[in-house]
Structures are given as C-alpha cells and as structure tokens.
C-alpha cells in the first residue's frame, strides 16, 4: 500500500483523537467547571461506570429508530413511486407534503403522546415522520429525471407505463433511493431521541434528561457520544449498501446514462 493510502486511512482517526485532545486540554487549561463541560477522560470514565444503562438505553433507541426508519422506507418508496409516476399525483400531494415536512416534529410529539401514551410508539412514529420525506423526494426525483428519448424508444416498441417503470424508472432511481437512506437514518435518530426526551421512560433521550435532572453532566455527554457512535455505525452500513447495490452509478455518472 502506498503512503497516501495510509495517510487517507489514518486521517479520520487522527482528527477525531485530536478533537478529544483539544477538548481535554482546554478543560484543564481554562479550568472549566465539571458541570459545564466535563473533560472527555471523565466522560469516558462515567460511560464505563454506567455502561449497562447506556447499553440498554442504546438498544431501545436503536430499536425505535430502526422501526421508524423501516416504516419510512416502505412508505417513502410507495409514495415516491406514486409521485414520480403521474404528474397529477405529484401536483396533488406535493404542497401537503412540503407543508407537513415544514412542521417541526417536536411539535407533533405531544399529539402522539395524547394518542398512544408515553413510551416507544411516539418515538417510532416521530422517527418515521421525520425520515420519510427525503426518501419520497429522492425516489420521485430519480423517476422524474428519466430521459424522454429513453421513454420514446420503449413506447415505440409498445411498452406500457408499467414496463417503463420496471425496466427503466425504478432501477434508475435506485441510486437516489440509497443516497436518501443515509440522510433518512440520521434523521430517524433525531426523531426518536427528540420524542424520548419529551415523553418516554426508556431510551437514550430519556437517559439524557434523567442525567441532566440529577446533574450528572458527564453522563449527559456520555449519552451524546453513544448517539454519535450509533449514528456513524448506521450511516456506514447504508453507505456500504449504497456502493454495493448501485456501483454503476458511481462509475458512469447518471447524466450520460
């Protein structure tokens, strides 16, 4: 392996370590009180101490996030194909969808709690509501940017709308779909944690709130780090999946497709 290869591999680790180092050093140099910003060494110590709590709550958050996310994938795919399929459906649904997306999801949580009570259901639904929009938009965009010539070629052969969608539209929109999954999974985390901080008795969001109430500031930061790790892991999984499924799009460039 060449030197540049190694440098590129090591760069993210070096940078992350550096960030923690700067944090640690600044805490000591500026004598920052622990209840304002604890140094990372203390945060990690605390994380180790509360490891079973962090682990269990992480699993809850992971489960609610994934449940909401998979709902968003199914629903987003169906809606995206419908919107990309016909201009009428597009015209009918788009304003409502944009308006719906503009509502801060934290404002919806109280209603969900009213309907479903405190617990995991509101978290799942919030994750779902916040993450389906990018999937819909991307799938619809993929379908809408099909070249008219390609459509002509197939129609002149007697292809039905369904044929054109199955043979060209849907495969063509797959790269857009997989790209949207990376955005959607991160948003789903935001949704479930927001809901957990408002109304839940388990999950990282709830743990953060409880720790803050008890003035356990290092544990609050520990929770944030746990969330970051979960987020990176999920993102990485979908990035790999994207490469696997739609490698052709990276090499060819969709524009000359």
């Amino acid at each position, binding site marked *: 392996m060449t030197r540049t290869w190694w440098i590129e591999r090591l760069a993210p680790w070096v940078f992350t370590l550096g960030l923690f180092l700067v944090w640690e050093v600044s805490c000591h140099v500026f004598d920052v009180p622990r209840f304002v910003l604890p140094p990372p060494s203390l945060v990690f110590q605390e994380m180790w101490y509360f490891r079973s709590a962090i682990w269990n709550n992480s699993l809850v958050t992971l489960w609610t996030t994934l449940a909401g996310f998979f709902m968003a994938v199914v629903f987003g795919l169906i809606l995206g194909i419908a919107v990309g399929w016909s201009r009428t459906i597009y015209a009918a649904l788009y304003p409502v969808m944009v308006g719906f997306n503009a509502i801060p999801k934290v404002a919806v949580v109280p209603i969900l709690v009213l309907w479903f009570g405190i617990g995991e259901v509101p978290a799942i639904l919030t994750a779902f509501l916040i993450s389906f929009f990018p999937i819909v938009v991307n799938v619809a965009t993929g379908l809408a940017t099909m070249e008219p010539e*390609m459509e*002509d*070629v*197939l*129609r002149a*052969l*007697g*292809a039905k709308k369904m044929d054109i969608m199955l043979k060209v539209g849907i*495969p063509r929109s797959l790269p857009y779909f997989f790209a949207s999954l990376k955005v959607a999974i991160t948003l789903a985390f935001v949704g479930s944690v927001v809901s957990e901080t408002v109304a839940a008795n388990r999950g990282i969001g709830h743990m953060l709130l409880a720790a803050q109430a008890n003035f356990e500031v290092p544990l609050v930061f520990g929770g944030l780090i746990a969330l970051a790790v979960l987020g990176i892991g999920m993102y990485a999984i979908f990035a790999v999946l994207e490469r696997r499924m739609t490698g*052709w799009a990276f090499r060819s460039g969709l524009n000359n497709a």
Partner: protein
Amino acid sequence: MAFVRLEQTALAYPTRDGDVLALDNADLAIQAGEFTAVVGPSGCGKSTLMRLVTGLRRPTRGHVIVDGREVVGPLKFVGMAFQNATLLPWRTVLDNLLLPLEIVEPHRSNLRRRRREYVAKAEHLLETVGLARFGRKYPWELSGGMQQRVSLCRALIHEPKLLMLDEPFAALDAFTREELWCVLRDLWQEQRFTVILVTHDLREATFLADSIHVMSARPGRILHRHEIDLPRPRDLEICYDQRFVDIVHTLRQQIKGVRQR
C-alpha cells in the same frame, strides 16, 4: 402502396402564446424497404415528424398511415435511435440489446423459453457491427462511437420493419461518423428495413439514402423530394464523385434558400 404515408398532416403545439404550428401540410410517401432521409434547417420540425410517424403524437390535422393502417396510438414495432445512445448503465451491452425483446410481442412471451437463441442473435448482431466480445461490458466502458453502435443494434434486434433515426451520428467525430455510415449501410443492405433518417448532415443523407426530403423552416413543410440514384453498394469514395458533390450542392442551395425566407 407506400409503407409510410403522410397526407396533409399538421401538428400544432399548444404554448402560452397560443398554438405554435410545428408541421404544416406535410405530404410524404415512403415505400417499404426504402431508405429515406429528411433534411432541413434546425427547428423545422424534423423530430416532430418522427414522433408523428411512430404515433407518439397525434396529428392536429391530416392523416398518418403506416403499413396500410391509420396511426392512432404508439406503434408497437418501431426501432429508434437518437443522438444520445440512451443505454441503461446498470445493464451490460448484451442485456441492453435484449431490452426490446422484453417488450415487443411475440418475443416478450417467448423470452424465457428462447433466451439462448436471443442471446446468440444479439451476439451475432454485435459481431456485424464490430463489437464481438463486448457483450459483457457495461455501456460506460465503451467509447461514444461504440455506444452508438450498440444503440443501433438495440433498435434492430427485434427486426423491425421500420427504423427511425434522429441524428444518430451527430455527436460523433468525423471519422467515427463515416465508419458508422458504413455499418448502417451494411445492416440495411442485408435486412432491407424501411428507414427514416433525420439529419442535418447533407453528405450523410446523400451517402445513405435512396431519397431525400427537404423541409422548410417552421412551420415545417416538405418542399422537395430527391431520388438519389447513385449505384449501390456505395463506397465512401463516392463522396468525391462529381455526381455526389452536385447533389450535396443542390441540397445546400435549397436549404440556404429556405433559411433566408
């Protein structure tokens, strides 16, 4: 009886400033197996003509008759190729060629049973255009000229009676273009399908076609029909023949006249 006939055909596009007439009183008669070219100044409705003949658009006035029947919806057997190769990047060259067979009947129903036969046919076609052993490649691994060859093959794989070409060689360099003229010439010589070639390259039209239609500026009308009786098979050398040069010159004058009007 002509294979493709346009009778007093007109097409108007609705726009914000009222209807724009793209094609007006077009009359055209193309025999089965004839290679015809349509030339004209840019924006004269050549592509509109293509869409009318294939039934992708209905005329506002007049008739379009193909194979003895009035065209009322998209025809189901036409091979088409455009300036862009429009190949699907997630399919190999071979799978791109098989695409029409997945759509056109009766091949569509036979595809599973006779797949091996169809693959052999696609490979043979690739061989005739000089792309043997490229079947497993992806389109983006091919040069522009090679992609256009594949696009031609895709238009011909189901042995269509009618081939529509919309400036298929316009984006290629001069040498590749002349190479592909010969590829198309040989394919036509062998299979004798009916071709309508829309182009603005007068040499291309003269080299390939039996007849050339000259269109006027918008709204497009068909002004002249030339019979090109240069002997076949034609060699690229013919481009330097005095008769060839005269034909191109005449066409050039006519189009110049049309543009200035």
